[in-house]
C-alpha cells in the first residue's frame, strides 16, 4: 500500500515536472506553423491589436459624459477593466485553444494525440497556439499601469499582494472555465460557443462593476459561475468598497480558494470527458 502510494506520487511529480517543457515544445511548433503564413499572421496580429485597443476606448468615451459609473471613477474602472482583460487574456493565451477539441474529435485527430507519449490535455491546450492572443494581456497591462498610477489610494504591501494574487487566481478561474467548456465538447461536439459565452462573455461582464447588473446576476456570478471572484471582489477589497448582497467585505480574499475548487472541477470534467471518448469512440 505504502509502496503504491509513493509510486503514484512519483508519477504525479514526474508528470508535473515534465509538463512545462512539453507544453513549451508544442507551443514553439505551433508558433512556427503560424509563421508559415507571414501575411496572415501579421494581419491577425494587427486585427487583434485594433479590436482589443478599441475595447477600452469605449469605456473612455463613456466617461467623457459621466463622472462615475456604478460608484466607480475612471481610474477605478481602469483597474476593474484591466484585471478582467488581463486574466481572460492570459487564460486565453495559455489554454484557450482547448475549445478546438470538438473539431479534433470530429476529424479523428484526437486519436493521433492519444498515441503520443504526451498528455492529450497538454496537446489540446497548445493546439494551434495563437501568438496574436498576446495582444490582450499587453493592452490590459498598459491599462493597469495607467490606472494604478492614477488611483489615489494608499498602496500597502497587503493590497499589492492581493492584486497580484487575484490576477493569478482570476486567470486560473478563466482557464478552468475554458477546460470545462472543452470537457463538455466530449458530450456535445458543437458546444464551443456555450463555453465562449462564459469566457469571452464573462470578461465583457466582469469589466464593469457587477452591482449595476442587478442582484440576480450578482448571485449567479458568485454562487453558480464564480466570475465575480475573477476580479470584482478582489478589486472591491483593494479599493475598500463594500461587497454587494450584504456579503462580507473580505470575500475578495476567497478568490484563490475559488480558483482551486474550479481547477478540481475542471480536472474531473476533463478526465470524465476523455474517459467517455475512450469508452465510446465518438
Amino acid at each position, binding site marked *: 500500500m505504502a509502496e503504491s502510494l509513493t509510486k503514484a506520487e512519483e508519477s504525479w511529480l514526474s508528470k508535473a515536472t515534465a509538463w512545462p517543457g512539453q507544453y513549451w515544445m508544442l507551443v514553439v511548433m505551433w508558433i512556427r506553423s503560424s509563421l508559415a*503564413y507571414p501575411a496572415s499572421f501579421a494581419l491577425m496580429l494587427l486585427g487583434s491589436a485594433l479590436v482589443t485597443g478599441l475595447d477600452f476606448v469605449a469605456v473612455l468615451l463613456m466617461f467623457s459624459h459621466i463622472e462615475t459609473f456604478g460608484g466607480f471613477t475612471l481610474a477605478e474602472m481602469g483597474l476593474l477593466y484591466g484585471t478582467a482583460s488581463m486574466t481572460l487574456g492570459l487564460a486565453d493565451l495559455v489554454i484557450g485553444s482547448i475549445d478546438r477539441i470538438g473539431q479534433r474529435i470530429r*476529424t479523428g485527430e484526437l486519436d493521433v494525440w492519444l498515441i503520443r507519449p504526451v498528455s492529450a490535455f497538454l496537446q489540446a491546450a497548445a493546439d494551434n497556439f495563437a501568438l496574436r492572443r498576446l495582444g490582450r494581456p499587453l493592452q490590459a497591462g498598459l491599462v493597469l499601469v495607467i490606472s494604478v498610477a492614477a488611483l489615489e489610494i494608499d498602496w500597502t504591501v497587503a493590497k499589492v499582494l492581493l492584486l497580484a494574487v487575484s490576477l493569478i487566481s482570476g486567470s486560473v478561474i478563466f482557464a478552468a472555465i475554458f477546460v470545462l467548456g472543452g470537457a463538455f465538447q466530449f458530450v456535445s461536439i458543437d458546444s464551443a460557443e456555450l463555453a465562449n459565452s462564459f469566457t469571452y462573455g464573462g470578461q465583457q461582464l466582469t469589466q464593469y462593476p457587477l452591482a449595476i447588473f442587478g442582484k440576480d446576476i450578482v448571485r449567479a456570478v458568485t454562487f453558480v459561475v464564480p466570475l465575480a471572484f475573477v476580479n470584482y471582489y478582489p478589486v472591491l477589497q483593494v479599493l475598500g468598497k463594500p461587497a454587494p448582497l450584504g456579503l462580507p467585505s473580505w470575500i475578495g480574499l476567497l478568490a484563490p480558494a475559488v480558483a482551486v475548487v474550479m481547477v478540481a472541477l475542471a480536472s474531473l470534467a476533463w478526465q470524465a470527458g476523455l474517459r467517455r471518448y475512450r469508452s465510446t469512440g465518438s
Partner: protein
Amino acid sequence: MPVIELENVSRAFTVTSRTGLRRTRREVRAVDGLSFTVEPGEVMGYIGPNGAGKSTTIKMLTGILVPSSGSIRVAGVDPSRHRLKLAKRIGVVFGQRTTLWWDLPLKDSFAVLQKMYAVPRARHAENLATFVELLDLGDLLDVPVRQLSLGQRMRGDIAAALLHDPEIVYLDEPTIGLDIVSKARLREFLAQVNAERGTTIILTTHDLDDIEALCSRVMVIDHGHQVFDGTLPVLRASQNAPRTLIIDLATSHPPITIPGTTVTKTDGPRQWLTFPTTTSAAPLVAQIAATYPLVDLTVTEPTIESIITNLYAQAHK
C-alpha cells in the same frame, strides 16, 4: 513470450438511430470475443471487410479505446491503463491522417518527435540517417508536409512512427492511395525493418498484395469474429481453391481429359485446366507433355481476393 495477448476481448458500441421522432438505441459489437497472441518479430496481416472491427482492435491495442470486456496485454502492460507509458514502445501509422505537423518542414516534425519520445540524440540521428536513405527522404526534409504528395507523406509518417525504435508498429492501411512503385518500395522497407530490428508489425489493409509481400501470418476477421488465423499458404489450402494450368498447345485440340482435372475454357490452341491445390503440378505437366504437343505453360495460384470472398461467404452461412 508473446508481445501481444488478447483474451476474449469484446468492444460494444451503442448506436442511436432516429426514425422520425423515435430514437432507438441498440448495441453493436464491433469486436466480439477475440483471442489471439502475437510473438515478437511477427508480421501479421489483419484483414477483413469494412466495419469488421479492424480499427477498433487497433485502437484497443494502442490504448485509445478501453475494451468492454476481456483482457489485453501489449508489451507486458494493459494498454488502456498505461497508455502514455506504452506510447513510447509502439509506433502507429494511420493511413488516412498524418501525425506530422502540416505547415512545417518534415525535418521539424522529426525533431519534435525526438524530444517528445525522449530519444537519445545520437540514436535519433542514426535512425534518421537510416530512414532518410531507405525511404529516399533526403529531398523532402525541407518541404512543408502540406506540399508533399500522398506517397511522400506516407513515407514521412512511417519514418516518424519508427524513429523511437518501437517494439511494435501498427500500420492502418499504409499503402492506401499509393502508386505501384511507391507500394513496392514501402513493402521492401517494412520487410527490412522487420528483419533487421525485429520489429513486430501489425498491418491492416485492403490491398492483398501487401499481405502477400510482407506477412508471415494472416488473420481475417468479420463482424468482430476471427474467421481465420494462419499462414497465407494454409489460408489458400484451407479454402481448397483450385489452381489453374494455362497450356499452350501447337495446334487446336479438343479439351484435354485427365482424371481429377477440368478444362474450364479453351481459346484456339490455349486451354485452361483447373486442378486441386493438393495435386502436384509436375506429374500433371509430364502427363500432358507425353500425350499432347505442349509448347508453353503457366501455373496460376488462386487470388487472395477469391479466397477471402469465399471465406466471408462461408462465415455467413
